[in-house]
């Protein structure tokens, strides 16, 4: 077998990589903001806000219960029938964001509920409002707890973002597909692309491990490490 790699592929793949990073970064950040709001509503809504709880729950169940690919297709090919047309990039970013928000909402909800109830009690006893207690006491602790599952979601979304090549976004996967088709070098191109993804995952893992260690609360043990 005769494997051929060409330096000439790299600029295109680098462009694709940049777009993958952009899509992943933006959708994860927007998804986190939306996910936190969904989680707060699911944990704390009561009284007149109860309808919001229903909406948030329905949202989370719908977007976790349907494939990302179906969501993307519906947004890109379905919405124009209703008169709403989007560029491939916008549709892709939207689909990724809406999807990850639902998953992140569940991770944030779990983290918020892992904060001991006494923390909220003590904050309220001091005279802090509910929102202040969430802002200064519950969330800072929940955000630390959410780092491990959030790292998982980041890695998953980074790889999952490859599906957007199907609507014509030339991210890493899209570029690879083009090069492979043009040069009949499927095996080699996809090996290189796989290594790109692998390197990204490694990089993200290292960064988040660093963040986790930097934000660790002194004196609290590390689970699983004596």
């Amino acid at each position, binding site marked *: 077998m005769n494997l051929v790699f060409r330096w000439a592929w790299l600029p295109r793949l680098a462009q694709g990589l940049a777009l993958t990073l952009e899509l992943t970064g933006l959708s994860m950040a927007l998804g986190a903001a939306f996910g936190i709001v969904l989680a707060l509503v699911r944990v704390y809504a009561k009284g007149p806000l109860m309808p919001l709880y229903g909406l948030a729950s329905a949202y989370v169940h719908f977007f976790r219960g349907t494939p990302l690919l179906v969501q993307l297709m519906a947004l890109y090919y379905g919405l124009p029938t209703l008169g709403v047309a989007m560029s491939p990039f916008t549709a892709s970013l939207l689909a990724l964001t809406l999807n990850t928000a639902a998953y992140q909402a569940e991770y944030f909800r779990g983290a918020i509920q892992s904060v001991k109830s006494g*923390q909220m009690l003590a904050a309220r006893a001091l005279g802090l409002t509910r929102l202040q207690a969430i802002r200064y006491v519950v969330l800072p*602790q929940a955000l630390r707890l959410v780092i491990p599952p959030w790292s998982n979601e980041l890695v998953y979304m980074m790889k999952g973002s490859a599906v957007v090549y199907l609507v014509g976004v030339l991210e890493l996967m899209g570029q690879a597909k083009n090069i492979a088709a043009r040069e009949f070098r499927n095996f080699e191109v996809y090996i290189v692309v796989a290594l790109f993804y692998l390197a990204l995952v490694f990089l993200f893992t290292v960064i988040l491990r660093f963040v986790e260690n930097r934000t660790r609360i002194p*004196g609290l043990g590390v689970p699983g490490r004596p």
Partner: protein
Amino acid sequence: MLLRVEDLHKRYGKEEVLRGVSFSLEKGETKVIIGPSGTGKSTLLRCINRLTEPDRGRVFLEDVEITSPRVNINKIRAQIGFVFQDFNLFTHLTALDNVRLGLMRVKGLSKKEATERAMRELARVGLADKAKAYPAELSGGQQQRVSIARALAMDPKLILFDEPTSALDPELIGEVLSVMVELAQSGMTMLVVTHEMGFARSVADEIIFMEKGVIVEQGPPEQLFKSPKHPRTVEFLRRITELYGGEK
């Protein structure tokens, strides 16, 4: 009259935890609530600052009815210190930041003012040197002293203590009690739920014996410990004495 509690009722499902509790507290007084576990002592404390909403009855702090729906309960809570059995220090904050949080976010003090005040309160409970320590780096006794400093920093009109030494190893109880004794002697108004009969005897102006959601008997420690009137009080004191030994 600093605190007046009128006919408080609280029910959890089928169980009525408080069945009409009334008492009052003068400025500078220390009252100790004793009684078997599960008789609503903690619920009573939490109803006083409405961490738990009472079903019925009224609570007055000075002349303000706390239980009125029109009152801003956050403003009221800032005037009532609360010390929990399991401390509930904010785990992600240093001792200093635990004490500073309410000063800055509730009382609106600048960081500089809040720091000065917080350091003064930490010094008062003997922990100025632990200002930078996180709760998990402190012993239980130290954590409870920080939580007392956190309550004191708010300049409360009274402090509610919910079994402040029950979660502590025996050798750490003394340091917390001595802080509380000093507080009582300095004129702080205190309402304390505890099983520490020695503390009750030496510090309390009045003992309140509660059982099954009602006050069975109340009176000065001398009288209540030496010659309790109600057979339930006699029985409880006998069991407590068996458990913790006699005179302390």
